[in-house]
């Protein structure tokens, strides 16, 4: 399936994703049960993450989600705060070697639950209604993975966080009633505006910038959904956007692909932390 095929679906995008899998009844039930289970695990990791301020393995992160969650909402933007806190809660659990759901990777695990569960809780939407959007998110990830490996080490962070943001944008769009076309364009706009993002974890640990990056790109996904729900579209066809991201991924030097040798990792402080950790 291409994103173009998906955009042409007449019903819900998630139904088109399921139909495309060619499953029998038992397999379909297993898929939905599996997604429900993933949803429970996501909730569980958010709860643990919001409640904990235990430091990660390196001590670089661990208190961000809880700190934000308990801070005063000076912006008067509870949705923003919720989405950011949820996303970081998951990734701080991840950095503590806690149990999380990769979506599509562990480093980007906070984006989908941050955006989808954040929006749902903000609007008081029941978990039952989140299963279909989650299936759609997986479908978008699957389409992207047909063009490129979803891994920071091959495509940079755009491949991980970009994919997760695209998946989350489509999911939130469907949750709020957007049609297949709107979901696909939400994904494309999220992706287009993540192209070029490099993978540069300090010391090679999935902590800095990864934890805060999930907060930022969960919000990015929600803004993309907002644009798509208002009828905005990507001028560049969604499948071409994926191609563009893949080609940028190939241009990235190894230093910017998860080796911890470029970008924010290659700063005096980043290098010092890496050295301290190696001891």
């Amino acid at each position, binding site marked *: 399936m291409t994103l173009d095929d998906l955009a042409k679906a007449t019903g819900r995008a998630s139904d088109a994703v399921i139909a495309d899998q060619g499953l029998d009844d038992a397999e379909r039930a297993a898929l939905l049960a599996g997604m429900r289970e993933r949803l429970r695990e996501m909730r569980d990791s958010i709860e643990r993450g919001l409640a904990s301020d235990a430091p990660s393995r390196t001590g670089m992160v661990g208190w961000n989600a809880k700190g934000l969650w308990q801070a005063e909402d000076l912006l008067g933007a509870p949705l923003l705060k919720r989405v950011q806190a949820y996303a970081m809660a998951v990734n701080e659990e991840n950095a503590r*070697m806690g149990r999380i759901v*990769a979506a599509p990777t*562990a480093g980007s695990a906070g984006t989908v639950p941050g955006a989808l569960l954040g929006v749902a809780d903000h609007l008081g939407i029941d978990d039952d209604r989140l299963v279909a959007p*989650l299936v759609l998110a997986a479908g978008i990830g699957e389409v992207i993975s047909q063009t490129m490996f979803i*891994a920071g080490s091959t495509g940079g962070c755009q491949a991980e966080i970009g994919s997760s943001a695209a998946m989350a944008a489509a999911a939130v769009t469907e949750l709020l009633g957007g049609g297949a076309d709107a979901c696909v364009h939400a994904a494309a706009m999220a992706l287009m505006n993540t192209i070029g993002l490099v993978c540069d*974890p300090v010391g090679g640990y999935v902590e800095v910038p990864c934890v805060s990056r999930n907060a930022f790109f969960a919000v990015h996904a929600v803004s993309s959904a907002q644009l798509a729900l208002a009828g905005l579209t990507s001028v560049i066809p969604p499948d071409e956007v994926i191609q563009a991201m893949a080609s940028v991924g190939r241009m990235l030097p190894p230093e910017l692909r998860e080796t911890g040798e470029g970008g924010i990792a290659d700063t005096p402080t980043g290098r010092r932390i890496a050295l301290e950790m190696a001891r």
Partner: protein
Amino acid sequence: MSLLDVIGPVMVGPSSSHTAGACRLALLARAALARPPSEARFDLHGSFAKTARGHGTDLALVAGALGYAPDDPRIPDAFAHAEEAGLRTSFGTSDLGDVHPNSVRITLGAEEGTTTTLTGSSLGGGIVRAFELDGFRIEFGGGAPTLLIRHRDTLGVIARVARVIADDEINIATLHCARQRRGGEAMMSIEVDRALSAPAFAYLEHLPYVLWLRHLPEVMSATSDGAHIAAATARTDG
């Protein structure tokens, strides 16, 4: 790749490729050894070599060698568990050539002298691919039950094996085969839609040109509460 592999796996952090994927590759190596290892050597390549400790790759590899699934809460303490289990571990780095940056060569040895060397890559999101076993080029991903057959290179082996699998009413998803030299030893990896029946397995095992046969379980859905990881069947014969 199934949708539950995209939103998933449920796993212990911090990295789906460097932690969950590494764990799965070691699980495959353990299944290929078909007995609990007493010795594990890991040679890391590329990004695996550079960021292994940061991503807990070392812990995940050892956990996989111990038979733990990617969501097992014991992963962070894998080294302590290895010591308890009498598993000696060592790590090195190695340039494995023009392969995916997240690649590792895993050598497992058991008390009585059996060893297995599996080389594979973690492709992202926890998806893995083994591409070499005991020096033979093979290919399988752990997403389906897999038969590994080491055999003498004689006429009709592949046809015979395929026939047995078909008679068991099982579809072959992938088949890879490589030999050392004409008439020498060869290895086949066959991913099948479901596990072979015991009689079919026994039949294959007793074919005169089959030297060694393994039935690896599917590892992509292995979880810490499931028992199927230990279920690898084994029998060797020189």
